[in-house]
């Protein structure tokens, strides 16, 4: 019975070992297969912290089985039994000290990367960044291209090697916008404009999803994020401009109703739409200041080009603006 027990215990760890094998070189494991600068740094960080943790975990695992085996009553070898031995300053200093050191190392790396990978920070690049505005709706994603004037639903396309500044909000319960192969997610919340900077290093179709539960058909909020060459992107924009209808405010209101949606494209959308959505829930005199340094940082190249973004920073919302108050009363 005893022997069988140990065999079963080893068997329990088999899936763990198997997993490590299966993981290596598996393209579906998107987080371990990054295609953008941010995601690559995040993966480095994952490896660093895993490695540092393993320094302590592997010896403890070995020690656990060794001690349990060696000092079991049925052990053939008679070991010294010391029922009263319950303290050793030296030993305790070791096992307070080593974890403190390792956590200290992880903490230092974490703090450094927290600033380095802050999602609202613009990415350094030779190419001019592109701005894409993202609205989480009940159970679909709306993408607005303020510079190109087009809009899409459940599909987003951008050029490779060009920093993308996503500006995100929600016109529904909060969600989280996540393209794992390009980098981490950020919450989309109504009344706030968040920022997430990502870049794709190579062309490809990347899996995108909503990561925060937002109601009945939240599971259908997946989308394809396609990175192409600049030329292909321009061609696509032209194509959308020529072959698809424009989105009206009424069209948006209909789209915002709770329902799932297929991929859709629009050749145009009403001016200032993103700001209207953000401001819709804001009461006069009250600004939800969010986004940390994000909201106040003005070094985004895109901010100057885009007439819409000046008000997406949530500080100082002026509700006397006629256009905004109209939008606020639509619901």
């Amino acid at each position, binding site marked *: 019975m005893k022997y069988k*027990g140990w065999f*079963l215990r080893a068997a*329990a760890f088999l*899936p*763990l070992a198997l*997993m490590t094998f299966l993981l290596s070189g598996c393209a*579906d*494991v998107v*987080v*371990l297969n990054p295609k953008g600068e941010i995601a690559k740094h*995040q993966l480095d*960080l*994952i490896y660093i*912290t895993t490695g540092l*943790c*393993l320094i302590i*975990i592997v010896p*403890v*695992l070995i020690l*656990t089985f060794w*001690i*349990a085996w060696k*000092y*079991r009553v049925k052990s053939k070898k008679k*070991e010294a*039994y*010391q*029922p009263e031995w*319950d303290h050793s300053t030296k030993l*305790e200093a070791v*096992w307070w000290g080593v974890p403190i050191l390792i*956590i200290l190392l*992880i*903490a230092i*790396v*974490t*703090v450094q*990367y*927290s*600033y380095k990978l802050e999602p*609202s920070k613009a990415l350094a690049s030779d190419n001019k960044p592109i701005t894409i505005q993202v609205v989480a709706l009940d159970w679909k994603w709306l993408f607005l291209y303020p510079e190109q004037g087009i809009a899409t639903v459940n599909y987003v396309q951008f050029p490779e090697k060009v920093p993308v500044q996503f500006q995100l909000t929600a016109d529904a*319960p*909060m969600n*989280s916008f996540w393209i794992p192969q390009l*980098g*981490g997610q950020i*919450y989309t*919340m*109504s009344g706030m404009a968040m920022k997430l900077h990502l870049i794709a290093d190579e062309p490809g179709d990347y899996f995108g999803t909503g*990561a925060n539960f937002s*109601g*009945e058909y939240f*599971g259908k909020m997946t989308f394809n994020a396609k990175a192409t060459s600049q030329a292909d992107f321009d061609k696509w924009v032209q194509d959308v401009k020529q072959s698809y209808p424009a989105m009206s405010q009424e069209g948006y209101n209909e789209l915002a109703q709770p329902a799932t949606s297929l991929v859709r494209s629009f050749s145009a959308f009403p001016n200032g739409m993103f700001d209207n959505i953000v401001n819709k829930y804001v*009461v006069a005199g*009250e600004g939800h200041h*969010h*986004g*940390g*340094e994000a909201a106040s940082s003005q070094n985004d190249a895109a901010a100057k080009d885009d007439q819409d973004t000046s008000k997406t920073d949530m500080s100082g919302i002026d509700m006397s603006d006629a256009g905004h108050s109209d939008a606020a009363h639509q*619901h």
Partner: protein
Amino acid sequence: MKITKLSDFFVTGDPLIYGADVAIGLTMVAIVVALTAFKRWGWLWREWLTTVDHKRIGIMYVIASLLMLFRGGVDALLMRTQLALPDSMEFLKPDHYNDIFTTHGVIMILFMAMPLMFGLFNLTVPLQIGARDVAFPLLNSLSFWLFFMGAMLFNVSFVIGGSPEAGWLAYPPLSEKMFSPGVGQDFYIWGIQISGIGSLMTGINFIVTILKMRAPGMKLMKMPMFTWSVLSSCLTIILAFPILTVTLALLFIDRYFGAHFFTLDMGGNPMMYINLIWMWGHPEVYIVVLPAFGIFSEIVATFSKKRLFGYGSMVFALMSISIFSFFTWAHHFFTMGSGANVNAFFAVTTMIIAIPTGVKIFNWLFTMYKGKITFELPMLWTMAFIPCFIVGGMTGVMLSVAPADFQFHNSYFLIAHFHQVLIGGVVFGYFAGLYYWWPKVFGFKLNDKLGKWAFWLWNIGFYVCFMPQYVLGLMGMTRRVSSYSWDTGWWSWNFVSTIGGFLMGIGFLFQVWQILHSIKFMERVKGDPWGGRTLEWSIPSPAPFYNFAITPKVEGRDDWWRRKELAAKGVQDPPPKYEPIHMPKNSGTPIVMSLFWFILGFGFVFDWLWLIVPGAIGIAATMLYHSFNYDTDYYVTVDEIKKTEAKAGRVV
């Protein structure tokens, strides 16, 4: 709510629900018939429903929590079945799936882990510190009945009115009237609110018990480690639960009176709720895991036949965890754009908790070092805990690294992590504790062979179920999705995970079989079947209703072990000199008052004034009635003590 047709009140339209309706109806009829046929109504009322004996209250907590484990477990298996059959197959529709994961989470944390923990508190703490009862026995009974009525109110939503479906922490605006117009969220608010009041009172009760009712000579630094862990857990309870009460009250005011604390419009701030709920929610997970650490400490020392290594370190570690638990809440929303400063701060305060936790593992290992280890069931579960918890701890540290958490957040990686620490830590820990104290409570041991089957099924099932979920997280699968398309490549991992879930389910069935089998073919034990070290083992098993015939005088840590060693050296205890024992009388107040709480809660859920008013009046009236009841205690005579002790085979 206006009820115009039957389907407004009863949940309809799903064969699973109709099945549950029939099962619930039949069970209720069976219980009533059995109680009547065996003329057990009076016995049930006198011996159990009105009891103020901490041991019986403990047993009722354990029974209720195991029932809830069954319900939460069935929920889990329904979800896993759905995820093993994705895409076009719809075993569960999305809204039904949302019901089920919401209730699974709430039930497992609040109506399974919490009451099982309170059960172990009640069964053990007064005995460990040499007390006759808890500080406030009647309040203890009220705590239990409030938990019970809260749990029932929450569970009723399954067949009446509809379940909540906004996730186990009910984030607004999803949980607001605008997006959850049904009564499910109101069941959630009132079910948790009523049982939460009970939890808070238990916290206060056990702090006072531990601080004021220890046997003479038991200095704080001579307390058994489990008692220390209960103290740290209760301190965390009394700081955290008021936050929960207020948070839910504000959500209730939003929903009921149309206020705008957390709504989308009119200046409401949903983020405030998320901050508040996690200020309770994160300490909550430490509340349930701290007592497990105490249980492991007792078990490792007992089954290694050694003193616990590093007692001082352990106490310090427990206390520092309960303090640090209040500085971690923001790690639940690193991706909310709080900025690098905030994220870095909460990342570091979160990972610091790994240090005292790691230290405890070393202390347990060195308690075993140079010991004589026997692998009885409690020790087996403890041994299974160590590797499981350190791997879960490692993934916890990985999650706490804020910039990396941007890739883990809300994914199955997180799901795998917290199930690993909650099952590996809390469930394994409480199982270990149940197996350990079972003979103490009931006077017989549980069958070993069936217990080992359960043990291996649970353990293998655990790894088969949750290791694939780490992979799924890295593959981009997010929590709470009820379906996915084939091209994601998630199916095979989900399928394996589901197999593991069912293995754990079979493990649970083996435990049920083990208990039933052991009741039938029980192997009676005397006071001290494991060679225990602490006071609870110094009295007969099961303990007489007054616990200690004579209050013990404590001189050291592991006082019972010390006395056994003295006895082996031939030092005799002086013959006992009995004195009458002051005991509390049973009372119907707690159960009656809790019933009125149930009525009040049900009334608020449906907005029925004709139920709210009698509910509120009933609560006030029972409270008033009880405050004029002076007939609350009595003395056990010396004769009766002698008779009881002699019956337990003791020298009188």
